[in-house]
């Protein structure tokens, strides 16, 4: 709220006639500019300020001679190419981080895609019956807590090859929250919808697509969102051990050749990619389950 100060009254003698002044035509645009300014001030400025402060602290803390970790300026000078050109190709093993992220994403796509399909189907079946739910839930709750890497030796033994093993680790990591959430979503389908389906005599397949999936979509997508986050955690860990050209192996490789600044850049890529994946699944979920809750 602003208070407009009233002008002190001028002497009434000076003005001979009224003058018509054209009003300025710009307030609209300046309003819009003001709105943009407000968005910047409220949404964009705070993270930028925090980031700058954190980078400054980091810079101050590690810029001394003989510090164990590189400072942000070192990262920029030593690993600039990784930051500025993500998609260079100099050889089969010497490629940009963008390519490496894409390679990892491909594995995640297989593992997570499989987990999503199997998880939703298994969750749908288990959620239908109280007895099955009681039987399976404790097992899922236990398996859910097993860290991704703990699955790796078993899967290496089973598949005898690193590529399917990595995919299996993603699958087995991501599937539990998907199953558990889908089952919960199926349990939460209102009896009204079941009655409608019963009166219409929808068969199992029709019930699945027309009632269950849309009704349980918010639950399913929160499971998928947790799952995709876990997949991304698992792929980095799995690649560090199984090799290949993914982003996880890149970190391991950089560590072995003491390129610490490269690792920091890779961490940045991983973080941003994970963030994008999470938002992507969240966004798809919102679009798909639009209208599910009145």
């Amino acid at each position, binding site marked *: 709220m602003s208070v407009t100060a009233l002008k002190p009254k001028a002497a009434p003698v000076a003005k001979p006639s009224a003058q018509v002044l054209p009003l300025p035509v710009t307030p609209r645009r300046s309003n819009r500019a003001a709105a943009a300014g407000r968005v910047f001030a409220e949404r964009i400025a705070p993270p930028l300020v925090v980031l700058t402060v954190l980078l400054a602290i980091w810079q101050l803390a590690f810029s001394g001679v003989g510090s164990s970790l590189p400072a942000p300026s070192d990262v920029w000078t030593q690993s600039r190419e990784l930051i500025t050109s993500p998609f260079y190709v100099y050889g089969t093993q010497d490629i940009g981080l963008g390519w490496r992220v894409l390679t990892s994403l491909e594995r995640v796509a297989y593992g997570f895609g499989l987990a999503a399909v199997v998880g939703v189907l298994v969750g749908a079946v288990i959620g239908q019956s109280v007895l099955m739910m009681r039987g399976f839930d404790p097992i899922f709750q236990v398996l859910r807590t097993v860290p991704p890497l703990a699955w790796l030796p078993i899967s290496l033994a089973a598949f005898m090859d690193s590529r399917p093993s990595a995919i299996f680790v993603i699958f087995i990591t991501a599937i539990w929250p998907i199953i558990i959430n889908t089952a919960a979503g199926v349990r939460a389908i209102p009896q*009204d919808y079941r009655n409608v389906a019963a009166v219409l005599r929808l068969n199992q397949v029709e019930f699945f697509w027309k009632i269950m999936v849309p009704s349980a979509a918010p639950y399913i997508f929160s499971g998928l969102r947790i799952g995709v986050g876990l997949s991304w955690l698992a792929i980095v860990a799995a690649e560090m051990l199984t090799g290949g050209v993914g982003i996880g192996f890149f970190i391991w490789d950089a560590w072995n050749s003491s390129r610490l600044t490269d690792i920091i850049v890779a961490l940045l890529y991983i973080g941003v990619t994970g963030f994008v994946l999470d938002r992507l699944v969240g966004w798809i979920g919102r679009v798909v389950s639009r209208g599910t809750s009145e």
Partner: protein
Amino acid sequence: MGYLKIDRVVKTYASGPKVTEVLSDIRLTIDKGEFVSIIGHSGCGKSTLLNLIAGLTQVTTGAIMLDGREVNAPGPDRAVVFQNHSLLPWLTVYDNVRLAVSKVFGSKKTKAERHDWIMQNLDLVQMSHAADKRPGEISGGMRQRVGIARALAMEPKILLLDEPFGALDALTRAHLQEAVMEIHARLGNTMIMITHDVDEAVLLADRIVMMTNGPAATIGEVLPVNIPRPRNRIALAANPDYLRAREAVLRFLYERHRFVEAAE
């Protein structure tokens, strides 16, 4: 023989060793085209009775026959208009009706015929203007209209209305009662309506089935309402037949079968 025959139906629920009889010895015969209201205090099992006719719950003993065939599973020949509309919120009004139409008439009607049939039923309840809206975007009365359209679109042998207007305000309720009377006059459907509104029961019904209090509720009295149709709620306000019927129902509910809260 009646169109719908409810013969010595008993419904019990067993929870562990304790068996509760909800409905006891229900006998009722309803003719084709008849409009029957079922009235009773809450908890008297009237909704259970409707669910039994719908096939959503199974009878314990006895039998329900519709048009010569035993009812033992739900089906589109006994369409239900649920109390809380039960429209699927992720589908538009049109798609909600279409789900029913394509399931019931998927093989019997062409796509164009199905479209016409959907619109015809939405017209019947005056909801074709909102065909592309989602249930969340329309009022409670409109949702109930769409629920009726969906039920009618199945071309059921019998239309079951489970306290369909219970959650609506008095004015909207009156509008929908008019709509139901008009549809009944136009299509001549057999209808059973659960209600706890005495005026509604008398206004709409050819016969009023009054239920005693549970547990082990049964039909206490059946009152024929011999008021010629079309009925007009304003004209009826002073109609001696209407007042007599109304009084009879009130006496049944509040004198002879007064609802005792702690009946158990």
